[in-house]
């Protein structure tokens, strides 16, 4: 059974529409990432689920319990929703110790003093900060604060936890560790989680499903593999990875095949989004999919090497021809001059420009 159902949620600030009808489901034990650029409405959607923003239409149901229903005028206040929310800034109360921060939700639920102690201790222990109970938030590092925020959201065992950019306040090194740790913790505890992020790598690493939002509508949703390997629109294709853009003209579009003419070269690929014959189009291909070929052949373009950058584990090479620029990854340096680059048919998407 779906743990969380969001059905056609619409929200506006004054005359500005922020969410224009967003629907999604979250299955029990899953992590769903809400991904999108800033202003796409992903945080607003999370806050709607938490009850901190009020949509004007739609439905939000958790485990059979209606939290919001625009048509029936149901809108439970945040405190009656029983969800766990981890804020981007962690929002730890500076005047309470770590213990008191985590104990507060239990006290609100009338849990007896002794029970509070054991349950808080258990919660802190399970996320590895059992020894920090007496400290105040300002005495903790960013990573520790994040754990306390998580403990506070988990201690009353909510059916779904909501995470708002949980990793964005950590520095780069710590972020990768925290990502692994968070993913493990959520699956170990069997939690259902909805997680907002603007970082597609983070979304793919952490989530079972990704909901890509753009301008208040769902652009595409699916597993990370589907999202990365088979984008449905130009926006999805460009947002999910590092890409090359080859401007040209679409010729012969049919079902699952499309051809792009760049200069005088025909490149075969897959159609992406509503592209038609004769459209000005863009060929999109991930950097890691382009390879240097021995000589001429189908789906190959002759280009000149103009720059190379050493990235540590590999090189990034820059090729040019006329107004077309292509970046590729290469394990080794290659000689300067002209080369043939191959764009694999199955990873080359032709999108309407």
């Amino acid at each position, binding site marked *: 059974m779906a743990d969380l159902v969001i059905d056609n949620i619409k929200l506006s600030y004054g005359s500005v529409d922020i969410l224009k009808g967003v629907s999604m489901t979250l299955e029990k034990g899953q992590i769903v990432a809400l991904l999108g650029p800033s202003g796409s409405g992903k945080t607003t959607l999370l806050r709607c689920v938490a009850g901190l923003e009020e949509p004007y239409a739609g439905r939000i149901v958790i485990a059979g319990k209606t939290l919001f229903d625009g048509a029936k005028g149901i809108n439970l*206040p945040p*405190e009656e929703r029983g969800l766990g929310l981890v804020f981007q800034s962690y929002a730890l109360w500076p005047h309470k110790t770590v213990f008191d921060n985590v104990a507060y939700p239990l006290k*609100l639920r009338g849990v007896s003093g002794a029970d509070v102690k054991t349950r808080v201790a258990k919660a802190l222990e399970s996320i590895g900060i059992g020894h920090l109970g007496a400290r105040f938030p300002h005495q903790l590092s960013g990573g520790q604060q994040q754990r306390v925020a998580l403990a506070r*959201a988990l201690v009353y065992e909510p059916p779904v936890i909501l995470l708002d950019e949980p990793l964005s306040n950590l520095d780069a090194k710590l972020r990768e560790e925290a990502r692994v740790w968070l993913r493990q913790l959520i699956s170990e505890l069997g939690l259902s989680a909805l997680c907002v992020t603007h970082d597609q790598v983070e979304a793919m690493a952490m989530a079972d499903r990704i909901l890509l939002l753009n301008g208040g509508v769902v652009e595409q949703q699916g597993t990370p593999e589907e999202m990365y390997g088979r984008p449905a629109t130009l926006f999805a294709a460009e947002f999910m990875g590092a890409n090359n853009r080859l401007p040209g003209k679409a010729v012969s579009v049919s079902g699952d095949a499309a051809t792009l003419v760049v200069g005088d070269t025909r490149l075969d690929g897959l159609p992406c989004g509503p592209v038609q014959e004769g459209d000005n189009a863009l060929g999109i291909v991930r950097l890691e999919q382009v390879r240097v070929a021995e000589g001429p052949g189908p789906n190959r373009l002759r280009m000149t090497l103009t720059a190379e950058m050493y990235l540590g584990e590999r090189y990034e090479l820059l090729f040019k021809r006329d107004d077309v620029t292509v970046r590729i990854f290469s394990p080794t340096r290659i000689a300067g001059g002209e080369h043939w680059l191959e764009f694999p048919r199955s990873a080359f998407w032709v999108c309407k420009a």
Partner: protein
Amino acid sequence: MLRFATFRFAVLAIMASAVIAPIGLIIYQSFLDGPFFTPNVKWTLEAYQFVIEDDEFWDALRTSIIVAGGMTAIAVPLGVILAFLLARTDVPGKWILEPLVLVPIFMSAVVLAFGYVVALGPVGIFSTFVKGMIGTVPWSIYSVTAITIIAGLTHVPHVYLYTSAALQNLGADLEEAARTTGASPLRVAVTVSLPMVTPAVLYAAVLIFFLGFELFGLPLVLGDPKGVLVLATYLYKLTNKLGVPSYQLMAVVVVAIILIAIPLVYLQRLLLSQSNKYVSVRGKAAKRAPLRLGALRWPAFGLIILWFVVTVGIPVFGILLRSFVTTWGEGVRLSEVLTLSHYRDLVDYPNAMHAIVNTILIGVIGGGLAVACYTAVSLAMHRWRSGWTRLADYLVMIPRAMPGLVAGLAMLWLFLFLPPLQPLRATLFSVWLAYTIVWLAYGTRLVAGTMLQIGPELEEAGRSVGATAGRVARDVTVPLARSGMIAAWVLIFLIFAREYSTGIYLLGPGTEVIGSLMVSLWGTGAIDLVSALAVINIVIISVGLGLALRLGVRLHG
């Protein structure tokens, strides 16, 4: 359980009645032909006709405009210069100058006025000294000019506050950008900094002009002897004009004062929101190197000290000296007239002792209770996404349009009008209520400002883990605003201890406070007692200021 929305509406309703009842009563009274409590009172416009035909009213209005305009013209440039010197240059002794500049705000205007009379009056301490040297006193303290100059000098801190706050909010990068494109420091000040703080200066100018209409203590002490009236003193004198209590005439004057004040208050709101727009374009507030004044450092320091000596030093010295001598005049030798008898007389004068105790009570306990009220109002309006908050905004604004004298009068009438309140009229409660309402806007802004600094997510976190809005207010908002509330308490203490005009109409057995008692005693010519009381008032204020500095309270809300 009390729902938070219920609390919000309850606070709004209580505030609305506390604000609207007095003003409503005044408007009602202004259309009657006699005091509202007399039998057979009839509706009429006669009171309006009387006031409009009274030349003295128009004279007072004209004088008010002259004084308000003149003091604005003096206070604004001086305040801007002071703000620029202290916020942007390397003028020496900043650590002492910065708190010093704010002192006039917390000095009672009547105390300063008395001080000027005993120091610079016809037989004042400095006047006799000057006369002994050159044979004449080349100034007159009892004149519109003197009132305007003194009011201008004492209101410099208001301009200073808003301008220096704006200057400090201005990102250093904006000025540095101008420097790197080749502008000299002075040029940056004139072409970049000054235009950016113009909205704040404009706001301060309107505020000063508005405060000019509220002036009461200075014109009462310095204008009255020569028959110079401003609106507030005209109102005060009206009491005896017809021999009988002319409530309806007073009501009409109050209506006139409020009608002048409301557009000014509204203009201030408008300018404030305007200047906030400027704040949003600020760059990064980094530490910046102050502008080097070079040889002008000490002259600049001297200018600020000179202003302070003239504004506070001379009157305070005058009143202090006067409280320790039996008499003063030409040819008096200090060693022969020194005495402590005024203070001894004070101890033997029960009203004075009551006034001292009451002033401390109303400052400490009343201040605390007032802050509790302001906290309730702030909490009720805190992050309330509703049109009702606009109503609350306007309600808070109404008492701003009532000078203290008027609010005290309105409160007196209210206590006479409502039978259940009558027993409380002769108690300190009436004075406290009037003070609390007069300072509603100021106090609420102090407390609400502190609450707005709490990140909204700290409160949202409380809601999301299961706390109702009321619980969040109790467990998160109030504890986090506590230090701001204590600061507000200290500031309200200072203001309540300084207050004089609000208590004047409420003055009676049981409601004496130092401020209003001084005004009343001054009228009887008891200058010995007044000077001793004024010194005690200064001491109380100084203790409060010391406490504020000790606690690190920012003296500007």
